[in-house]
């Protein structure tokens, strides 16, 4: 049973790991192969700061809220293990700031210690009159992706540095199931007008005195179009750009100035921070995550594709819940192919 995963970002690698963990002992013939044109540190996941935080509203998409929760709980369980440092996983607290009162988010009970900001705290942020404080998690892609890669390599998963041009290409080579975790480029494999780039740009600085994340919100300009500051383990990420429909991965001087000026206004101490890099990336944005099976007729064969893409700016936040859901879909494929005598339970 050959399973090909297209994409080696956080979604592709975690889906591969989840499937291998759950099925390799039940299905000795299982062979996993990861195909990607970009590997860490050149994926979209590597550019993200790595903060676990969903969008403000789940737009009634309760399934996504559940996947977010599964991810948070899964990561929290790993926090005190020796693997945490290698995974790039650690706790971080911080501020979400608003110019007007807003309803509590769907994730208020998922994170730790969620509360409203006190008047004294709000005085630190002129121009903002309302906000939240909570403790969440950081999962740095630059560490997590290599960690996932190591786990997969240990399990005998093979990696191929190659741009897959079509699903057929893989099926004609004898692949049985394809996991489509191609993120932004999913449209190249199968047109999807709902998938659009949400272009972001970030400035990386050295500001080790910043210990909290600070995320501002401008309800009129939309998510991530307002300054944010996220301190990592080696550098701090300054951002605040979300341009829907912009495919450019070039850094823009105008965006640089906008990020720098707005972040320095938010945290005057940043004026002394040393800039060490800049990066632009495309959030694979979609009204909802596409996580579903698709059966493709190829001649007299029925080929199975599991789509798992369109995670926008919350890929890291939702990845494990989606990987588990993808694994469940894989399980149902196996059942239908009568590869399994009974449905698999979750692996402990």
């Amino acid at each position, binding site marked *: 049973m050959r399973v090909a995963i297209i994409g080696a970002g956080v979604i592709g690698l975690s889906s591969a790991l989840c499937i291998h963990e759950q099925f390799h002992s039940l299905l000795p013939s299982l062979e996993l192969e990861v195909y990607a044109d970009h590997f860490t540190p050149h994926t979209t996941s590597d550019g993200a700061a790595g903060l676990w935080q969903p969008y403000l509203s789940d737009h009634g998409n309760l399934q996504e809220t559940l996947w977010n929760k599964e991810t948070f709980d899964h990561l929290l369980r790993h*926090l*005190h*293990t*020796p693997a*945490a*440092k290698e995974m*790039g996983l*650690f*706790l*971080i*607290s911080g501020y979400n700031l608003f110019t007007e009162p807003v309803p509590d988010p769907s994730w208020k009970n998922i994170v*730790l*210690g969620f*509360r409203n*900001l*006190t008047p*004294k*705290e709000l005085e*630190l942020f002129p121009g903002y009159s309302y906000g939240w*404080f909570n*403790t969440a998690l*950081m999962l740095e892609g630059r560490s997590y992706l290599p960690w996932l890669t190591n786990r997969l390599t240990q399990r005998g998963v093979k990696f191929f540095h190659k741009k897959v041009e079509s699903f057929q290409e893989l099926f004609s080579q004898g692949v049985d199931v394809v996991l489509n975790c191609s993120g932004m480029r999913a449209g190249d494999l199968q047109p999807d007008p709902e998938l659009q780039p949400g272009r972001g740009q970030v400035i990386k600085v050295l*500001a*080790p*005195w*910043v*210990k*909290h994340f600070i995320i501002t919100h401008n309800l009129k300009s939309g998510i991530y179009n307002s300054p944010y500051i996220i*301190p990592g*383990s*080696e550098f701090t990420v300054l951002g605040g750009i979300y341009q829907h429909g912009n495919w450019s991965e070039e850094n823009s001087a105008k965006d640089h100035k906008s990020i720098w000026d707005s972040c320095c206004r938010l945290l*005057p*101490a940043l*004026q*002394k*921070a040393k800039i060490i890099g800049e990066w632009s990336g495309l959030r694979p944005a979609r009204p909802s995550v596409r996580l579903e099976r698709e059966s493709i007729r190829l001649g007299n064969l029925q080929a199975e594709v599991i789509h798992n893409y369109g995670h926008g700016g919350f890929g890291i936040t939702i990845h494990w819940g989606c990987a588990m859901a993808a694994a469940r879909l894989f399980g149902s494929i196996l059942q239908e192919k009568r590869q399994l005598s009974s449905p698999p339970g979750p692996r402990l």
Partner: protein
Amino acid sequence: MASPRVAVVGAGVIGLSTALCITETCPSCSVTVLSDQFSPSTTSDVAAGMLIPHTYPDTPIHRQKQWFKETFTYLLAISNSAEAAEAGIHLVSGWQVFKSTPKEELPFWSDVVLGFRPMSEAELQKFPQHRFGQAFTTLKCDCPPYLLWLEKRLKAAGTRMCSRKVANLWELHSEYDVVVNCTGMGAHELVGDKQLFPVRGQVLKVHAPWVKHFIRDGDGLTYIYPGIHRVTLGGTREKGSWSLSPDPGTTRDIFDRCCSLEPSLQGAQDIEVKVGLRPSRQCVRVQREVLSQGGVKLSVVHNYGHGAGGFSVHRGTANEAAHLVAECISALQGSSSRAKL
């Protein structure tokens, strides 16, 4: 007295901040800081500089709270300015955890720090050996940066820095009108204060940049304080010990205790060991005194004995000491004009 001459003895956080307050309350004063140690070899340089007050048994609580509040307000403003990085001042959030519920669930300073509240059950799960906890946000003064920043401000205000060991306050009587005694543990010898005693603290300073929160055991013995570049792991409270040599067994013990609070510290690198003697007293001595010897008088202001709480109250006590200096100068000016009559 056109330009009163003030000597501040001691260049730790107390000496430097007191000198700075004097330049602010008495701009016409000429201020000199005299010390045998400057940053990075003062006791202050060993301390983590966390703004979590120590309770002095014999100082009225309202006075301690006033000192803490003044210090917190002063530092909060710096942390929110462009100077924050240079001054080494930054906000840090975290948890104080207790193995058994403390008698006093609300410490006197709970409304001075930010966002103080009891920890939730979910948060306590991170600390399986502890049953109660408090979450809050406070400030940290990293040393040497903070002391170097104070020195820079002092030099800009015309303060002179002199490397000199003062063995006796009377040495200064002919050159200075007022002497301010900020000698910390040195006051034991310098003014013979037997109520002052060392409480030895050993700490580790490690590289663990993924640690973004402070964690403190309510017993005050085990703590993890993340600074700008290093995390301070502590510690010990050895009353009466004068030893400044690091003890390897203690190092191992501190590391183990901190790892049990924060397992990821197992991956910490570049462990540096430091020792400081907390200049401890039942109450901080912020007091004016006029010394007499053979018909000659010397105006002295004392500001020492801050023990484990130096950083937490430094600006408040510095302000109070500066006002006492102003009183000394008024008294001297009053008596010198009387002498003219």
